[in-house]
């Protein structure tokens, strides 16, 4: 299909991009890797009057170490996130979840910030960002500010980004030495998650010292499985403990029903996958 006509601009800096966004009003769309936006345009599910391509702004790309946290540029392709040694050393969960996104072609074009700002509840990066307490740095005409992950995801495809605001980068606290696992459940490799569980644990001498667990596609937004975390922390990492903790996985979820899974099955999956994810993250 052919998208409806639109104006297209390629700002060279964040300031230019923010100005373009502001001037274009609510009818503009930001193009990063295009892996979600282009299908929507081509199927004419959206017809923005202006596309602002942020793909050539150097400031939005790359990954750097800022002491107690990493900074991942919003327009950094998944492929770079997945291979990056800083990410693997300090935020392994994000690297592992990124490996499961779609297929290699998509991962070379799609971007970390684009996937998060798109806020598809079946997207695989939301739950890890939430579980790891990532912080979203956004810019608007009135300057820059930060939004914690716990406030960033508002509803289906809706974030706390206000009109005219652009996601610049994501700060991820360091979880050096933590183990992690992303358990993705889908029917074919390139498909979205039916359910996914992101788990990161710090195990100290067989005891789970800290645990973070996030759920994919179990509500309109990613869900932090705090009850599971609480049931794990301070316990020995045994099969019984993990199974018992995983039984709390559905607390606070509101799963939908679709052709792949009804709500009951999704709830069941959340428990099974949580058990598996935590087990893998503790071993």
């Amino acid at each position, binding site marked *: 299909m052919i998208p409806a006509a639109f104006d297209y601009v390629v700002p060279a800096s964040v300031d230019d991009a923010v100005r373009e966004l502001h001037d274009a009003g609510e009818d503009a769309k930001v193009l990063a890797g295009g892996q979600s936006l282009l299908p929507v345009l081509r199927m004419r599910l959206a017809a923005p009057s202006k596309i602002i391509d942020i793909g050539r702004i150097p400031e939005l790309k790359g990954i750097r170490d800022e002491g107690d946290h990493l900074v991942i540029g919003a327009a950094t392709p998944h492929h770079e996130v997945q291979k990056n040694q800083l990410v693997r050393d300090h935020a392994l969960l994000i690297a592992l979840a990124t490996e499961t996104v779609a297929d290699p072609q998509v991962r070379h074009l799609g971007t970390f910030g684009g996937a998060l700002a798109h806020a598809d509840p079946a997207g695989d990066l939301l739950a890890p960002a939430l579980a790891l307490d990532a912080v979203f740095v956004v810019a608007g005409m009135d300057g820059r500010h930060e939004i914690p992950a716990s406030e960033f995801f508002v509803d289906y495809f809706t974030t706390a980004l206000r009109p005219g605001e652009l996601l610049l980068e994501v700060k991820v606290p360091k979880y050096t030495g933590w183990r992690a696992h992303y358990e993705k459940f889908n029917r074919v490799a390139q498909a979205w998650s039916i359910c996914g569980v992101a788990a990161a644990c710090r195990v100290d001498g067989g005891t789970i010292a800290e645990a973070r667990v996030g759920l994919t596609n179990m509500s309109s937004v990613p869900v932090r499985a705090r009850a599971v975390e609480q049931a794990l922390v301070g316990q020995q990492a045994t099969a019984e403990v993990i199974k018992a903790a995983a039984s709390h996985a559905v607390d606070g979820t509101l799963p939908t029903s679709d052709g792949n899974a009804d709500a009951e*099955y999704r709830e069941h999956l959340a428990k099974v*996958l949580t058990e598996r994810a935590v087990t893998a993250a503790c071993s």
Partner: protein
Amino acid sequence: MTAVAEPEVGRARRRKEDARLITGRTRWTDNLTLPGMLHMALLRSPVAHARITSIDADAARKMPGVLAVVTGADIAEEQGSLPCAWPITEDMKAPEAPAMAVGEVNFAGEVVAAVVARSAAEAVDALEAIDVEYDELPVVLDMTEAIADGADLVHPDLGTNKSATWVYDSAEAGSGGAIDDAIAQADVVLERTFRQQRLIPAFMEPRSVLVDPTGEQITVWSATQIPHILKWMISAVTGVPETKVRVIAPDVGGGFGGKLQVTPEEIITFLLARKLGKPVKWTESRSESMQSAHHGRDQIQKITLAASSDGTLKGLKVELLADMGAYLRLVSPGVPILGAFMFNAIYKMDAYRFECTNVFTNKTPTDAYRGAGRPEATFGIERMMDELAAELGRDPIELRQQNWIKHEEFPFTTVAGLTYDSGNYEAATAKALELFGYDALRQEQRERRERGDKVQLGIGVSTYTEMCGLAPSRVLGALRYAAGGWEHASIRMLPTGKVEVITGTSPHGQGHETAWSQIVADRLGVPFEDVEVLHGDTQSSHKGMDSYGSRSLAVGGTALVMAADRVVEKARKLAAHMLECSEDDVEFSGGKLKVRGTDKSTDIQSVALHAHVAHDLPDGMEASLDSEATFDPENFSFPHGTHLCAVEVDTETGQTKIRSYVSVDDVGVVVNPLIVEGQVHGGLAQGIAQALFEEAVHDESGTLTTGTFADYLLPSAADLPSFTTDRTETPATTNPLGAKGVGEAGTIASTPAVVNAIVDAVRHYGVNDIEMPCTPMRVWKAIHTGERAAGGPGDEAGGGLGSIDASGGAQ
């Protein structure tokens, strides 16, 4: 002595057409651009059943670049009715099938209006400016409800949703006994109902049509499997004389039966190009293809299998409902009927009855899809054989052995009236069992069951046969099909010694250019590289019946062999003249024509040049070695094989993983083993996908909810195991190549092997069937429903199982 050249037939040559096909730097229809070419876009109905109360296209006509906006009413006279070439019964009900809807729409996706503009973008933009008002009518979706008394009707003027009922009864046909007797006398009678879900062919290249009306002939390029049939049918539908129509199928990117069609879009493009006097091109989007190109399968199969307590089959009764969708397309009614002769498969039995009722619904029309009728039949019987084995506590392989036709019994006339010329089910099965490690897997299965492993192992068997080489024309006539099943080939011997082969088959990814070159290289003794295969253009390839039904090699390849032999006969005659000997003394071998017992010889290239310059020909000989042949097969060919599948079912999630898959196919003599292996791999992927992934789903309003590849799931290499493929080779006796056909075998055999394996893995939970596709949720629900029904463990919270296939397959 020079070394004898290695025969081309049997060589695993890489395909010579692949470089251009894979890079896409070739003549796909959409790659073509003609001077002054216009672009067409189509507005499709968003609703499944409605009267069109008004269409306001004024605004669209004023859009930039727009030359014409046309509705069904505008072309009602000239568009005629799309052809259905297979009226399966004398009283078959067939609705008018306009290319563009006139007054009413009967499925979501039906064409309502067309825009022709200077660019494709302008044409698509203008679609949004067309305002159509619909007065919605009751939507008919469920086949069982559709044939109940008082049902809403898709086509009220027909008075029913039943199109036709077609019956084969072995007692009536004289090929066996009466089914009721067999059932009455049987110790065991099993009855099951299976659903063949609706599938979408999902060929790689979307459909595209370009029509140039500016010459004396109107030239139609189309991404079609059937240029010759299309030429005939365009003429039949539009009244334009066949001599004024030229059809070209340039390179075509897959079809799987989905391009065995005379499409509404081809007719509309043709009419509008003619109306405007300029070339017009239409290329569909993927979503458009998913929604409106014909779908496949969609049957409900009620099957009754009768056997004695020792496992001997007595009789088989098959009662089908087949969803035609809203209209009868080219061969829609006949697709389920192609299965009528295959449900009995490789087994001997006393009695057989097949009854199929074709039903109209407000859905996309169905038609041929890889296997066409035979996968449905194979699924039905092979699932039933596993069910019977379970019922009797028998090994499913051993039960099959007991009932199949032994190799020494061929030729064998079956209870469905076909004569299988050859086969060796014992050999294929023995090889498959060995490659699979059957006994070790059975042992592991027992162990996993005993220890209550959360991952259970299942083994599925499919010992299939199919009928290929469509088809003997007299049989097609008896089945009321409107055309013949022969194929044509011709060979041009060029003065430089190069060879042009013209085939009436129409490859769309199969590799005919390579395989046909191999055959001709051997037959004429010319280098492989010197053979060029021409196809798909009705001006050069003037005669043919195209490619479908695994027919190209068995039928078209035979025509080619016949034509080549005629070239050699002419060459022998001319060589005798050149070498001054008797024709009987000319020996032909490896391209050399030699006078027996001497060292006098010439070669076929020299003879071809001699014929061409024609300075010195024997009296009465024409100045040409060129030859042609038309071959009409006496019988079908019958590939067979044994497929074994081992799956691991995660009982906690219901996820199925194929652990190993072994196929041993007997497709007769093989021209190119690499091409055959590719066909098997692709076929397996497609058949496995029916078992596990693919399903066209409509919501209650008749809207397709799986209209993109995000929802309609196709497997990639990541989702499939590494296949173990092997072959046995029992030559077909019905053609000189000994070839049987391989295009559909993998698809036909694999679906039941996978489902049998899944059911086998979880049968001990009280499961005896799982509806396709066997999604994780369906498998999980079947396990847990079965557990609860049996008072088993079931550690899940009880209560509402949800609305989707809640009963799963629990007994």
